[in-house]
């Protein structure tokens, strides 16, 4: 009977969950479902792909940062993606940080590791004024904000995949009959298919420090890896601890199982019961 209940409960749960989440993210979207790519950060043993993240940082600094802020990322955290102290100081010093001098005048100074990436615009109005009314979103949590996970892996949208799909989803000409608004661009990964962002990448637009070829696909992949790290900088620490916790818990649960079995041995079978008293 107990087995019966368990199986029924399990079935009800599984069937319910399957129905409940199958269409969760597929709701009439005009955006093309992003293609799945492989990342070293994926899976339970996932690690940050440092060379790719470093290239992605270069793409961000030389291309994206013209419009997109990274408000929550401090230069000091670049240590997590393989830069040493001197390199971090050098990167930080390339930025001008607003400050107030001793006479109270607004001025600027070179950045230090404790500073955060400065915004490209003074405020939201300035950002909108320069971008045809659209506001380029901050990138600090962008990959997580575009990630729609579902019980059905095939209907899940991973943030990195979305970034790549968006970067490579531009078309010079919209499909016949599509009414593209003035100043917008056709992009099949974007909801509504028209986006205010000028196609940001083109082959060879920058030159990678490590000599990797700068195709649009390569730069998209690298910047996706970089932004994934930005959104979830503790991913690797989390998965490493998770592995230890899981290994410990599996062993511990086996011990608990046998402890329980042994404690219950006599009682389970009713050997402690005197049948004449029942």
């Amino acid at each position: 009977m107990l087995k019966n209940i368990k199986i029924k409960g399990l079935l009800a749960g599984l069937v319910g969950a399957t129905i409940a989440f199958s269409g969760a993210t597929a709701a009439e979207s005009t955006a093309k479902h992003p293609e799945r790519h492989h990342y070293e950060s994926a899976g339970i043993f996932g690690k940050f792909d440092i060379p790719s993240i470093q290239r992605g940082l270069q793409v961000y600094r030389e291309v994206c940062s013209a419009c997109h802020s990274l408000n929550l990322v401090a230069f000091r955290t670049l240590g997590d993606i393989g830069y040493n102290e001197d390199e971090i100081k050098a990167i930080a010093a390339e930025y001008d940080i607003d400050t107030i001098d001793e006479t109270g005048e607004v001025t600027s100074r070179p950045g230090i590791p404790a500073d955060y990436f400065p915004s490209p615009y003074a405020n939201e109005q300035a950002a909108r004024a320069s971008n045809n009314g659209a506001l380029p979103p901050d990138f600090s949590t962008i990959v997580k904000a575009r990630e729609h996970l579902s019980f059905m892996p095939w209907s899940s949208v991973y943030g990195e995949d979305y970034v790549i799909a968006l970067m490579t989803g531009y078309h010079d000409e919209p499909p016949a009959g599509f009414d593209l608004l003035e100043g917008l661009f056709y992009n099949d990964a974007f909801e509504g298919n028209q986006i205010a962002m000028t196609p940001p990448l083109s082959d060879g637009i920058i030159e990678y420090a490590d000599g990797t070829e700068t195709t649009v696909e390569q730069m998209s992949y690298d910047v996706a890896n970089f932004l994934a790290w930005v959104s979830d900088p503790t991913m690797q620490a989390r998965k490493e601890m998770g592995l230890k916790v899981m290994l410990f818990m599996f062993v511990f649960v086996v011990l608990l199982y046998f402890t329980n079995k042994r404690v219950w041995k006599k009682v389970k079978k009713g050997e402690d019961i005197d049948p004449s008293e029942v």
Partner: protein
Amino acid sequence: MASENKFEPTNPTLKWIEDRLPLMGLIYNSIGGGYNVPRNLNYWWNFGVLAGFMMVVQIVTGIILAMHYIPNIDLAFDSVQHIKRDVNYGWLLQAIHANGASMFFIVVYVHILRGFYFGSYKAPREILWFLGIIIYLIMMATGFMGYVLPWGQMSFWGAKVITNLFSVFDFIPFIGDGIVNWLWGGFSVGQPTLNRFFSLHYLLPFVLVGVVILHVWALHIPGSTNPLGIDAKGKHDKIPFHPYYTAKDAFGLGVFIIFFAAFVFYIPDFLGHPDNYIKANPLVTPTHIVPEWYYLPFYAILRAIDNKLIGVLAMFSSILIMFAMPWLDGARVRSMRFRPLSRFFFWLFVANGIFLGYLGQRAPDDILWFGLVATSYAQMATFFYFAYFLIIMPLVSRMETTKPVPTSIAAAVLEANKKG
């Protein structure tokens, strides 16, 4: 059930303390060798302990998170990111707390449905059942306010939708008009709203602890039910909580922690909404505003009804109706093991609840199957939800021919053992 085993410390210091404040005896008689429990409890009875565990986890992680969180509309979102990025193990605490809310609801839903199935709400456990419903209501309020605190898009708009529900009470003289503004502390969801939600989100868990203590107290008067639903009578029907159920609960807890940890370490954002990674913006409404998964069935009931006032009342009634269950169910036999027809409808009710949850996260005008929109299905499912309590339960429980019930728990154990 009075305990036969009394706690008598042999250590003179402990005895001195125990004579003056019998705290150790209280614990011994609550979850130790002094609490005698039916010997046939199955794993569904683990979920009460699991719920207690989750309550402690949420309070402990919550207190530490509150040390770093800033309840200010300009800083709240960033302070949560600060916790995840800069605070030592802040990412772990935040993930445990955010997923812990879901885990708490999962175990409580199982715990409640365990009560449905095995008739735990029936005499003499009505007050125990009422306290459980009150716990659930406090959990819902706490969970809702907690979800607002990170001040993401879904936090803000969820708060707006749910608080706006109270505008249906505007027909009440004097207080009705301003009720929503009073809840907000202003003319929209803003700084006063966030501040009071933080305050209440910190307060309510301790109210919860108080009600849980009453719940456990009320449990110890008649003692636990059991899968057979018959009263434990003979001396062989019961065994002490410790070591039997401490061992069993420890194993169950271990399995549950693995489940919990899988979310925390590998898919910490699976149960959340991606829009909550976007800072709240009162000027941009998300395409679909959906509450957390654990409210979805009730959200579906709310939206199923065209009239806003009736919808809100239906939503609240869908939970409050559980208070009437001890009388709606007129069966003499508690456990659905011996009530096959009730059991059949119980599983339909569970499936219907999951279906309502599915409908709750669809847009109301989504066309689903046979050309019908989500709202139409939600209306059918809402009808079944209430019909289960108001038609099926009263009739089936009184008319169903039940299967023969064992004479005692011990007899059933011996019988089962004979069969192997």
